[in-house]
């Protein structure tokens, strides 16, 4: 049941993106080599296929839902909160990491790798740990050591610069 909301979201995102790209395809050259197909054809086939298959999937889901409604709702369906029928259910810890990842990438440009990596590992290892096992010092040391090792490895051993 919780996955159904996610299914609707995937279908919606894909359909909107496919429509947008079909519109954008008009700006792609329509020149074709003799006997061949142009740069626009293959993308259009891909986007239209996604749209058609999305429509099929949605129809199938709605049809299943309609049939299920005729009977008694399942126990899982009855227990699922109304909100998770609209928004995909994401566990608290996963959601926290998603938000922290977004912050990490946004702040990387301004603070640099060393600072954002330290803050991310320290913050995540502090907040993800169950309350009874939490230790600020352990999280800080872990973040410092891990960030330092990654930085030294990439920059000095593998010669790959990190901003």
């Amino acid at each position: 049941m919780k996955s159904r909301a996610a299914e609707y979201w995937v279908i919606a995102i894909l359909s909107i993106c496919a429509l947008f790209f079909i519109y954008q395809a008009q700006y792609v050259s329509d020149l074709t080599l003799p006997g061949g197909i142009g740069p626009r054809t293959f993308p259009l086939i891909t986007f239209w296929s996604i749209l058609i298959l999305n429509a099929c999937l949605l129809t199938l889901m709605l049809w299943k839902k309609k049939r299920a409604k005729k009977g008694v709702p399942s126990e899982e369906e009855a227990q699922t909160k109304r909100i998770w029928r609209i928004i995909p259910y994401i566990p608290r810890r996963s959601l926290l990491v998603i938000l922290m990842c977004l912050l990490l990438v946004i702040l990387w440009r301004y603070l640099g790798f060393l600072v954002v990596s330290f803050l991310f590992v320290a913050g995540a290892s502090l907040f993800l740990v169950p309350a009874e096992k939490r230790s600020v010092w352990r999280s800080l040391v872990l973040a410092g050591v891990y960030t330092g090792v990654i930085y030294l490895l990439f920059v000095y051993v593998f010669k790959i610069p990190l901003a």
Partner: protein
Amino acid sequence: METASSFSMVMQVLTDPVALLWTFVGTFMGLVFGSLPGLTATMGIALLVPITYSFSPIHALGMMLGVYVGGIAGGAVSAVLLNIPGTPSAVVTTLDGYPMAQQGRAAKALGWAATASFFGGFISWLILATLAPQVAKFALSFGPPEYAALALFGLMIIATVSGKSLIKGIIAGLIGVWLSLFGVDPIMGDFRFTFGNVNLMSGIATMPALIGFYAIPQILQSLSEEETRELHTTTLNLSDFIPSLKEVWRHKINVIRSSIIGTLIGIIPATGGNIASFIAYDQAKRFSKNPEEFGKGSPDGVIASEAANNGITGGAMIPLLTLGIPGDSVTAVLLGGLMIHGLQPGPQLFSKQPEIILGIFTTLLIANIFMWLIQLVGIKFFVRILKVPNYFLAPMLVILAMVGSFALRNNLFDVWITLLLGLFGYLMALAGFPTAPTVLGLVLGPMLESEIRRSLILSGGDWRVFFVRPISGLFIGLSLLIVLTVAVKSYKQRKKAEEAAVTI
């Protein structure tokens, strides 16, 4: 002359301490990734390929193949000690491995798992080294229609069998193809869907996308699982770990049969270690004198499963190296890694860069030997690693994923790509869409488009070119057959389920 030059190339790898070192590191890291439930060999390769950006191809190959071999073999550790397969291919190992651990024979089960994995890998390596050059010779006669049909076949087979829903599988494959459409058109060189962004002119880079699809969703999913790990290690007596030669000899038929099954299954796209180990286990049970012991802690069960799932490593490399077609997500990521180092697997690689092929063969063998030795010496370390909770690992893996994406072009745009595709991959996973077809679509998309268009140019726009040539016709026919079979099968299953519901 050819043999002498081949021998010298093999010796070059064997005597290169740096190549040996990276193969060792790769195998060790692979075992770590394989041992931990929730982390897989695919994720291991995706996260560790960025480390190899500055390496020579042979050193990079050592690292990647080491992770591959170690990642597959490592799955047995948690399968035996926790009853949780470290990788999907170790599911069958739990059937007898965990009961053995409960009976106080954990060391024996782990020892058999490591030894059977080594033999599985070694026998599949023998088949790879014998068969691959012949297949490559044959594939030299392939033209654009054959490659287009092969790419379509590879994509269709994984899209149809990797998920529960046929439609979702095909959509997932098309998402991958979609991601491969950005940047320069492969035939005419025009820009497509760049939106004036310089970063999109060379398309969406494969590695950041692969890291996004394979690392981020798995990390997020591992955090949602409750951690109740109960280790059966109190009786881990290491003197029991290494099976004696007499014991190995007693189980020789099972080892050889399971390894061959694994290799042959590995050659078929979209199959994977779990199918191979199921079939090998079933065969081992059928031919066993004591079939009643299976499922209750029989070493033969562990041997069959592990020999077969490591037999996959050599088998899956055959279509990858000879045709450039990855059969599963691990080899798709491996292909992405090879392409970063300027290597395009296919028959041309055999004729133009034989030293790379020999390097791959040699490294794969070395990785198998390292995999066995590392487990023999360091099994206690891998047992200890199982105690590290996910909430400590997750932030570190996220940083490794982000750094890996950034390091490719020193560009934050790639980090955004990893994050956004990772989040979308997570949403897809929540919705029950398989990610393996997306990864394959991403890797095979450019090949599919360019070969279809080349075929049509060569045939003057005649679509019959795909059907009149026997090999391309065969693969297109097989693709259609698979789609139809899966569609009919799922329709019948749904009907059956509906009838059962009505009866209740």
